[in-house]
Each structure stands twice: as C-alpha cells, then as structure tokens.
C-alpha cells in the first residue's frame, strides 16, 4: 500500500517509535505480535462476533435525502453514531481488548479527553473482566462529568491527570508514565491513530472496518464501490483513518480531512494541526504538532473536546504533506450551525466533532451526480450541555 506504514513504522517521513527505553519492551512486544495475533482465525472470529452482536455492526450507510437536496449532491452518512457507546471508538477498544487478553495482560490503561474513548475502554474491560484505569485531565473531568460517571459505573477507576495543562495531552502523558511503571502486566489502549509504532497502524486496522463496510454497502446501493468523496473529522484521526483506509490507494476517491479551526485558524485559539503544526515528536511519534518556536507543545483549542489534540496521527501528516487528502479547517461557529442543520433536516443529532465534517460539505461543492460518504463518527448526546450553552449564548434564552 502506497499510503500504508512501512516495516519501520513510518508513513513517508512521519511515524516511528520515539520512546524512552523504559517503554521499549512493551512497545516491541506489541510490534512483534500485533499482526500475527490479528491474523489468527480464532481472533478474527471472536472479533467479528463481538463487532456484530455487541457493537451492533455493520452500521447503516444512510442516504440522507434532505441533506443531499440542500447541497445538490448525493450524500450518504456512515452511521458510526449507532455503535454501542455512541461512536466509532469502540471498534478499536474491542479489538485491543482481545489483543491484550492474548498477550496475557491483566491490567488496562487508557487516556481520554472528552471521555468517549474512556467509556469505550471501560466498556470492553467490563466485558473482558479486566481492571481498567482511565487517565483524564482534571479540566476535562469537570467538563465531561456524565462520561466520568459512566466509566465509574462500568467499574473503571478514573485518575485525574493534574500535570501540565490538565487535558488530553497530559492524560496521555500520565497513561504513558503508568505504562513505564507497569512494564509487564499492563496493556495501554491508545484511543487514536497516534503514539509510537505500531499504534497508528494497529488502531487504523481496527477502525478500517468502517471503509470495508462502506465499499460493500455502496456497491449494493449505487452499483459501485468507490464514492467520489469520503469526508471525516480529524483530531488524532482515528475515525478518518478508518473511513479512508480502503480508499487510500484509490486515487479517484477524494479524501477530505476536517480539522477544528476553533475560533479561526489565525486566532490563536485553534486545533488545525495540519496548518499550524510543525514536524516534531509527540507521544512517541514523529508527526505534525502545534508547538512554540522552542519546541514546547502548546495547548490547542476547539469547542469539541475530541478534536483538541495538539498533534495528528502520522498517517494524516503524510496524507497532508503528499496532498493525498485535502485538509479543511472548520470553525466552532460553522460546526455548531451544521449540527443544528443535521438535527433539523435528518433527525440526527451529531457529535460536535462530527459536525465539523458536516460543515465541510459546503466547501467541497460536490456535483449532483457525485457520491459523498460522510463518516458520522458519533452522536451528540454527550455534548448536550455544550450545545445548549452555545445556542443560548448565540440566540438568547428560550
């Protein structure tokens, strides 16, 4: 695959495993074994059963007629919001928990920002009967209280990350530090296509079920496997990696990656890493990241807690650099407008992350005969407080 990872863990010039020696045995064990474990027929059977019966896959590919009419093109929504726990995140955690069991691990750690990956991890740990520790920035614990309660209900321990800026970046640091301190019995379930090799590739493979299904479903509905556009939002980039995966080497398919511009790309309050980032090292991966001139990692901003990561997965850095994917940055305001639009046109309340992808529809200007597949990565229930507060400030109290 031209855009796949090479044997050294690189996508073009991005990727690799820039980790201290304390992490080397853990990461190396995973690197040696992940492909062979994932190829085992029993592993695949167990994974497919869980995806079908537990996660609820395949998720529908829904022809959104009223949205299509508005943009004068043919839009399909890949309904990842209908997965168990409400987003695509569980595709990865189900896969990694099966992997962790085969590696003989007894203890699972994870990082979370908005809490979606934390909930998806706590869920599969309950299912597998494994101890679960989720690191979450103290700032995010305050902002995402319902997800914290869900994780606790599921039996997970939520540990506040009090270092640095106390958000996703720091929760990830704390999870990595935990792994350093538990080098033998613990598996770290990273929630996105970030981190040292093999994580970006492993997570992309678990998420690739999204594009695998899109191809089959589109063939049934349109008589062709390849859409003209695939649109997905990008924070770290896991739902986009899954939605793009089986189209990466199909040059006729336009890949649209949508980042969060926050208050505007040049406002100083943004998370548009492909525009604002420079090549560097974050969480063990060489990729584009937002940083000061001196190489200190900066805190991004977006109304969406799932998109405010200062880096981006190395696959996406490569897609941006080579021009294989077009990167579009969408502001808070445009995303929130798109959220209301989809709610009223189709009766689907999307997550704020996903709403960034929806807002990009007007930038793409697809033709009436063209087919657009948009990855509806998650549902908006978790965002209800943010949504209500936002519109109250915009429109005044009801």
């Amino acid at each position: 695959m031209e855009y796949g990872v090479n044997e050294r863990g690189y996508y073009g010039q991005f990727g690799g495993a820039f980790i201290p020696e304390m992490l080397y045995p853990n990461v190396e064990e995973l690197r040696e074994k992940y492909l062979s474990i994932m190829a085992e027929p029993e592993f695949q059977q167990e994974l497919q059963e869980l995806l079908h019966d537990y996660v609820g896959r395949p998720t529908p590919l829904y022809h959104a007629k009223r949205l299509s009419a508005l943009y004068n093109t043919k839009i399909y929504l890949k309904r990842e919001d209908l997965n168990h726990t409400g987003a695509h995140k569980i595709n990865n955690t189900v896969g990694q928990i099966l992997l962790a069991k085969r590696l003989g691990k007894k203890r699972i750690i994870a990082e979370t920002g908005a809490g979606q990956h934390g909930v998806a991890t706590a869920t599969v740990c309950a299912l597998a009967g494994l101890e679960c520790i989720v690191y979450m920035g103290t700032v995010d614990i305050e902002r995402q209280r319902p997800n914290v309660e869900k994780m606790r209900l599921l039996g997970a321990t939520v540990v506040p990350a009090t270092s640095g800026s106390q958000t996703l970046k720091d929760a990830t640091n704390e999870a990595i530090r935990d792994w350093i301190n538990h080098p033998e019995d613990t598996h770290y379930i990273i929630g996105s296509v970030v981190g040292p090799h093999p994580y970006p590739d492993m997570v992309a493979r678990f998420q690739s079920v999204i594009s695998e299904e899109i191809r089959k479903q589109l063939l049934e509905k349109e008589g062709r496997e390849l859409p003209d556009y695939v649109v997905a939002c990008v924070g770290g980039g896991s739902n986009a990696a899954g939605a793009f995966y089986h189209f990466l080497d199909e040059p006729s398919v336009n890949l649209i990656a949508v980042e969060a511009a926050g208050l505007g790309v040049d406002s100083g309050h943004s998370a548009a890493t492909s525009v604002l980032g420079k090549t560097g090292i974050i969480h063990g991966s060489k990729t584009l990241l937002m940083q000061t001139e001196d190489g200190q990692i900066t805190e991004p901003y977006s109304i969406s807690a799932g998109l405010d990561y200062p880096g981006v997965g190395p696959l996406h850095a490569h897609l941006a650099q080579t021009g294989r994917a077009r990167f579009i940055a969408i502001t808070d305001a445009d995303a929130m407008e798109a959220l209301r639009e989809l709610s009223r046109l189709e009766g689907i309340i999307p997550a704020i992350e996903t709403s960034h992808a929806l807002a990009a529809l007007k930038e793409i200007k697809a033709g009436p005969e063209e087919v657009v597949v948009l990855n509806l990565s998650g549902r908006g229930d978790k965002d209800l407080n943010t949504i209500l507060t936002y519109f109250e400030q915009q429109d005044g109290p009801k």
Partner: protein
Amino acid sequence: MAQNRLSRLFQEKSGNLLNIYFTAGYPKLEDTVTILEELEAAGADLVEIGMPFSDPLADGPTIQASNMVALENGMSIKTLLQQLEGVRERVTVPIILMGYLNPVMQYGFERFCEDAARVGVDGLILPDLPFAEYEEEYKPVLEKHGLSLIFLITPQTSEDRIRQIDKLTNSFIYMVSSASTTGSQVQTSDSQKAYFSKVKGLGLKNPLLIGFGISDKPSFEMACLSAHGAIIGSAFIKALQKPQEVRENVRSFLQTLR
C-alpha cells in the same frame, strides 16, 4: 575532543562517581551556572543538566514540576547555551545535557551539537531518540562534534540489547534502577539485586551509573556496590526547594552524601 573529559574521569576514578541532575533555569532562570559551579566545588563528579520540556514523559512529579517552573522562568535551549557560554573557564566537571528530542529538533540537531560542543558540553542524554534513527541520522553528527550519547537500560532490557548499546556508546551506560519514572522510591528487592549483578557480570566495556530512585547516602552507597556510580535527580531538585540561598542548598545536600 570534548569527550576526553568523560573518558578521563572514568580512567581517573573507578568507583563512587556522583552524578547530579538538575533542571536548567530552576529554581530561578539565572541559577544554572551558580548550581553548576557549586556542584563542582562540593564534589560532584559529573553534572547532568536537564533542558526543560512541556511534556517530560519519563519523569515523575518532582522533575515535571521543575520543568514547568523553568519554562515559566523563560528557559529554552537557546538561553541555556547562552548561559553556558564561557563556562569552561570556570568549571572542569563533565557536563551532560539531558532532554527530550522535540525541542532539540526545533533548535536544529546539527546546530545544537555544534553550539553545545563549543560551550564545552561533553555528552547528551536524549531518552526518546531511537536506536535505528541514532545510527543512521544522528551518530555522524554527534561524532563530528565530539559528543557522546548516553543510552539507558532497564531491568526489562534484554542482554542482546544491552550488548548492542554497549557497542554503540563510548562514555557510560545509564542503568535505570527499576521500572519507573524518575523520583520514585527505590525498593531493594531480590529481582533488582539480580538485575544489578546480571549487568555487572556482562563484562561491558562502558562504565555503569545507576539512576532513578537514588536519593540519599544509603541508596547512593548501595548503587555504588553494583556500579561505577550513581545519579541523583529528584532528591536534589527537592533540596533546591529549601528556603536557603541556592549555593547553601547545593552544599548542604552534597554534604549529606559523602
């Protein structure tokens, strides 16, 4: 060549080597050289200066906090190298710079090596620089500027890999005492003793210094039984937090060790 200061040290002194770590620009921006001078005067054999980073993955709470303060004080690689300008007229103790790769990359690796060597730095610890990248990209640059790269090993590092590291390096090996971040309590266990004696028995060409969890005289002396010396970091950072004047803090901490 700069690395002579390191090799000379290991030729002259074969045991009980004391390496002290501190964060550049901590507790005050201008303390770096003061601490360095005082450490030499108080008998440190090597000094490891940390270049602060926003996201120090391998460090525990004490060093994390010192990194944050140093950054707030305005410390950067550029400022540190300016502070070290002319330092070789004042101290002879070997100096090692420790830091994460990202700030070094942004400064420019070649330029960093050139400037560090010019001010009299002897070696580097870049814990997140992988082997393969080191051999292909970074080694020639380091060698050109006469800088040694110091590698870490842990209780989980295989014998093959330790031997590979021994072959690649020409100063000393940083032996992490247990699976942990910096500043955790050292726990003397049978498995740790077995690890220490296993590594000691490998007959490596490079000297060994034990770090992580070494905080006081007993743990320093214990480490010195199994290696050529030891590295103290977090405990020294804590000593710098005492209300006395910084020179006094350095002196009194080192007095407790000898």
